[in-house]
Each structure stands twice: as structure tokens, then as C-alpha cells.
């Protein structure tokens, strides 16, 4: 998957977790947890969605590397096929 496909995947995963959020207005460097009001349950659901969509099972130790849209795309870009 290329970067733009990954961005689509990340946004789709976020849309599942925070259906009311306006993701078109989401900046690449905005902290996701604060901006979208994600609690730990939401974040786990987000990670599970990423797994489904990209095949990357992000280990718990790497959750911190998914802090923003740009960070998540970069992280997945290095691992998704």
C-alpha cells in the first residue's frame, strides 16, 4: 500500500471509531487521541481496524507511534505490504 492508500485506511479506521468526526478537516500533525476524544477502548478499536485494513498488527509497545495521522501513515508505510 502506498502513502495515500494508507491515509485512506487510517481515516477509514478512525471513522469507524469516531463516526461523528469530520476527518476531512483533520490535520496530519494533530494529536488523534485528544482531537477525536479517543479513550483506551476507542484506541484499541482503532488499532484493530488498522489490522483489518492494512494487515499490520501494531504491538502495544508501539501505540505511541500512532499519535497523529502522519505518524500512523509513516509507521504503517514501513510495515504494510
Amino acid at each position, binding site marked *: 500500500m502506498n502513502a495515500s492508500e494508507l491515509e485512506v485506511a487510517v481515516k477509514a479506521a478512525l*471513522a469507524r471509531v469516531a*463516526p461523528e468526526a469530520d476527518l476531512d478537516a483533520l490535520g496530519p500533525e494533530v494529536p488523534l487521541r485528544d482531537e477525536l476524544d479517543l479513550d*483506551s*477502548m476507542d484506541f484499541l478499536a482503532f488499532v484493530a481496524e488498522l489490522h483489518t485494513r492494512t494487515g499490520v498488527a501494531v504491538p*502495544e509497545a508501539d501505540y505511541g507511534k500512532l499519535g497523529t495521522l502522519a505518524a500512523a501513515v509513516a509507521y504503517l508505510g514501513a510495515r504494510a505490504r
Partner: protein
Amino acid sequence: MAELRMPSLGADMETGTLRAWKIAPGDRVARGQVVGEVETDKGLIDLEIWDEGVVEALLVAPGTKVPVGTPIARVRSTAAAPASATQAVAPVAPAAAAPAPAVEARVAPVAPRGAPKGTPAARQLARELGVELAAVTPTGPHGAVSRADVERAAAGRAGRAPAALDSGAGPAAPPPEGAPPPAADRQAAMRRAIAAAMARSKREIPHYYLATTLDASKLLAWLGAKNADRPPAERVLPAAAMLRGVALALRAVPELNGFWIDDHAVPSRAVHLGVAISLRGGGLVAPALRDAADKDVDTLMRELKDLVARARTGGLRSSELSDPTVTVTNLGDLGVELVLGVIYPPQLALVGLGKIVERPWAEGGLLGVRSVVTVSLAADHRASDGHRGARFLAALEHELGHPEEL
């Protein structure tokens, strides 16, 4: 003969408004069938029936607001089985606890089969603006209608022709009898319900508060090892493990689990953990993880996920809303370290879970860094004393310190 009654969905619910019937006299109904829609301060509820038979009469019209427990329909039982008969005449619980025994209800699912999909916020807005959800062009994820879609649809309609707004009433006409209240009213109603329950709690319940900070390192290490080999969808959050610990510790101190009814404590054998869940867009519900002490951590995690999802998108059952025996509130995600809670009447206690943080920790004469969490108890002093409350926190500390036994 069975009576369908307005169900109680918690001590703060006094009335419910019947919004719509999905049955008519003469219809045959089956156990678990959705027969109508009820609106409460907690939102729209799909009303299920738990008696089989033929609808004999609908006793209230859509738009009617009735007190909890009011018979709203009569069903002639065809099964005539003793079990069914027993259900029909099941005693009405004391007003304070008041789950309506013969009735179970569900919060309306986001997308009933065949119906247009929409987020809960969008559905609510559509209802308020009188927009038909099916007529809205969805742009949301998975073909769902979003709030913005509804707003667009409403704006477009208003822009086209005011006459299209409705066929009958003029623009200045009051809302039709039984029309859903506007959002502000609903918010105000929910606030009033919370105000009534919390004021009653502080007026009637002599709270005492205890808190202790405990070492959660072993718990986190245990969960970390458990989760390492698992796909994300099967991972367990610390909250689920802590809920398991709370349920087990409550078994050790039953005075904290149950209800205060008619001037005495009525402990519950079952532990139904009410989990405070904040709703996206505001509001709070505390549906129950039922029989939490009998379920392992993986099961509780699965059920917790399911409960949170249904609390936010619809599908809560009345049993989940009406019979939690204790409430747990977890504000750790918001960075809160210590919760001093207000008991939800007529329950006997509220357990608070704080944020898991790293702190210097001295043990056995050695100083180290540990992940710690502050757990708290607000309990009804009429039903228990600080000594027993302390026993509960000690039991919880033991459970969380031996995660392999959870």
C-alpha cells in the same frame, strides 16, 4: 393475560414516552419481538415483549407519557404454559429498584435491518428536524448518514419551499402532540434526571470514602505478556482486568453490592457491575456487565467492548440498564488519579479507578519505579462501615497483585 408495562431503565427514570407501536390488536407476538419504541432521557429504546400471544389491546397512544410500570398493552397468552403465566404476573419490584419484570427493551439499533444507516447523532437530529433518514443522501462511512448530511437535507428542504416543511400545520404552529422534544429539551431532561438521582444520593446516602494506591506493575506485565501474541481485536485492556478484580473483591464484601430498599440493605448474590460510559456528544450511562464475578478476564473484555459499542450506537437491553448492583467509574483515560464518587441510588457503593501512572515506590527497603493506580470506594454508611470498606480495597489489592488468579 399478560400486560406489557413501561419498563424502568434505572432509578432516575420516572416516566417514558411511547413513540410508536409496531404491533396492532390481533397481531401475534413472539418472545423478544420489538413491539414499539419508547423515548426516555437516555434516548430511544426499542421495546421488546417477553410473552407470546396475540395482542388484545394497545392501552396508550403514541406520544403518551406514562409513569414507569404503567400497563401499556395487553397480550392474550396463547402458549398458556406455566412459565409464561409466571412471567406475566411477576411481581413488580419495589419502586426504588423497579425493573419491569415482564418487559425487556433495547435502545434502538443504529441500523435496523432494511432501514437507512445513520450515526446516533444523525438519527437524533433527523428526528428533531423532521427529516426522513431514508431521504437523506449518505456521505458518512459505510453508507451511513452523518449529522452534516441531515443538516444539508434539512437546509435544502427549507430552501426549496417552506410549504414543503409539512402539509398541515403553519410555521407558527406548536409541535404536534407527542412530538419528540428538541435537543435542548432532551439535554435538559437528562440533566434533570441526573440532578434528581445525585441530589437524592447526597440527601439520603451518608457516604464514606476510602482510597488506596496500589502497585499495578504485575497486572500490566501479565496483560502485556497475554496481549503480545494476540491480534489487536483479542487484546485485553487493564480496565477489564480491574473490573474482574472489583467483581471478585465484592464477593468478599457483599455489604457493598446490592441495594438500599425500605430502610435496609438488600445485598445481591450476583455482581452486576454498572460501568459508567460517557457518550460521544455528551451524557452518561452506566449499563451492567452482568454476573461479572462468574466471567474470566477475556469474557469481560469482550462484553465490555460490546457494552461500550452498544451504549454509544444503540442496542442496550433494559436488564443492563435497570439492575446494576454497584457502579464502577474509570476516569483514568482523562488523566484523573483519584475519583471520589457519588453513589447511584439505590446502590450501596461506587468504585473509582484512576489513571495508571509511574511513581517512585518503596518496598522492602528498596526504591523503584512502579506503575501504580489509585482505587477508591464511596460506600453507604448505613449498609457498611469503613472497616468493611477497607476490607474491600485490601481484597482488590490482593486480586490485582495476583493477576494470574484473575
